[in-house]
């Protein structure tokens, strides 16, 4: 307390309002007044139903507007022709603090480079820190505001984000022949919801989740 900066003499120090000391009758009078004052606030909201802020969630699903920045679902950006830009460089995998991302690559025989095979993202261990999106040098990841991802089996929370295995969109764009382009890619994802862990079929997985959603 020797420090001058900490004493109450400083110009920025603002003492808070002390509680006044009241007598017996003063307390009764003040008490009744304060209770009525509080009730006035309550009554104001009672007779003004427009001030109610409650949202009826499952019913207002149609009209629910979510900010585009909300981070609740990682997705690999696919352009309008359905091709992504991921080069399987593994930087997102290195940046992920809790190993929620697993990138599986495979050699591409044509140009002796690596290409994306599986992009596996585990929602159950993801903390939505957005680091993978920030560090991606090709901006091919994004966080989406879809939040209704609850399932009955934890294994369903491992997503496979790739729709095909094969080269990036830039390589595919150079290929003019439609038929040749189709041969370069291998469809990976038929069901765009939660998938089996690692893209592989696990024992005991409910049959219905493997069905095509089209």
């Amino acid at each position: 307390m020797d420090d001058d900066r900490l004493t109450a003499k400083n110009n920025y120090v603002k003492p808070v309002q002390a509680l006044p000391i009241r007598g017996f009758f003063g307390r009764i009078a003040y008490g009744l007044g304060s209770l009525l004052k509080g009730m006035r606030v309550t009554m104001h909201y009672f007779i003004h139903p427009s001030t109610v802020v409650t949202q009826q969630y499952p019913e207002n699903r149609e009209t629910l507007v979510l900010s585009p920045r909300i981070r609740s679902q990682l997705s690999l950006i696919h352009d309008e022709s359905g091709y992504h830009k991921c080069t399987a460089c593994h930087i997102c995998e290195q940046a992920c603090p809790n190993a929620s991302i697993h990138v599986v690559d495979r050699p591409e025989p044509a140009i002796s480079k690596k290409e994306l095979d599986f992009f596996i993202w585990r929602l159950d261990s993801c903390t939505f820190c957005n680091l993978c999106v920030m560090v991606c040098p090709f901006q091919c990841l994004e966080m989406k505001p879809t939040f209704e991802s609850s399932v009955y089996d934890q294994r369903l929370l491992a997503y496979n984000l790739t729709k095909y295995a094969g080269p990036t969109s830039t390589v595919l764009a150079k290929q003019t022949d439609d038929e040749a382009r189709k041969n370069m890619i291998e469809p990976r994802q038929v069901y765009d919801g939660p998938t089996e862990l690692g893209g592989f079929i696990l024992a005991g997985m409910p049959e219905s989740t493997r069905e095509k959603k089209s």
Partner: protein
Amino acid sequence: MVTTTLSLSSVPISSLDKRIQSLENEQSSLGTQEYFVNMGPQHPSTHGVLRLVLHLDGETVKEVIPVLGYVHRGMEKKCEFIGYRQQVHLTDRLDYLCALMNNWAISHAIEKALNIELNERIQVVRTILAELQRIQSHQLWWGVFGMDLGAFTPFLYGFRDREKITAIFEDTIGARLTMNFIQPGGLMFDITSDFAQKVKEFIAYFKPILNEYDELFSGNIIVQERLRNVGILDAKTAISIGTTGPILRASGVAHDLRKLEPYGVYSQVQFDVPVGATGDCWDRYQVRMQEMRESIKIVEQLIDNIPEGKHMVMKFGAKIRVPEGVYYSEMETARGIYGNFIVADGSEKPYRLHMRTPNFNNLWSIIRMAPGLRIADLVTILSSIDIVVPDIDR
């Protein structure tokens, strides 16, 4: 009356069983009886998994022994493994009501180490967001404080208004609680074009609401009588325990890092530091209520002219290499001083990281305040300390 010579300092927690046994063996002759009661770990008014062992004499509290460790996650050790870039998002999970300020504190330490000069825009936006977070945190505290005293209504009012700030955060940051927005080198995104407009709308909305809080709750005679002269903590004890933030200021010590060691743009704005006189629950209540008004003042001064500039002065990849050395940064969060002590060995992971979290020190003020009071008052005190348990255990 059972006469036992028990003091907190002399008996370690591990010997609790022995003490309970010794009390049970003794015979009580008159009226009240001494006994031990567990408050928590699952108790609504401890705001998390905190266990308080109460040594009671009838309904009077003789001694409070906080038992910690129920949500210990090894944060500091974890930071030694995951690296500087990744550990920023872990600080969200310490004091989850001050996530942005925690992000700022740890980013500040890394920026200090790497000598990164931030531009004015980043500093101003960070300051605005931190003050909004302070208001948000105090709003939640206000609501929960009312609920702990037995009034459910303030809880709904507090959360209704907290939602307004949360909506701003949702639009700007993309998260509601664990934001990870303030990054080493700047901000994760640039603020949206309508950010200033939204904040102004909120301030216009919230200013009259603060008076409504006073009408509804602060002016209430029951509240006043329950807070008056309850849980008095004098300045000397508060300093010796190491309490910071509103608790220390309520005890009459004008200690605020925003004034003493200004960071961000706090040196450029005008605001007062509310300071209490007696250090009872009423002072702690009033200090926080006034702090909300001061935070509004700060935001009002900054929101009209946010300077132009980049939102990220230095873009990092997946790893950040910090040069060898020892770095410390501390910041005034809504609950007190949050400090980061980093020992760097030149790699992308800290050799050791110590987090000085405010709630850990603030909690221990309860063992000085509670003796002699009733259990109902203990709940009042615990709520007026405004603890966040994950921050204590970390």
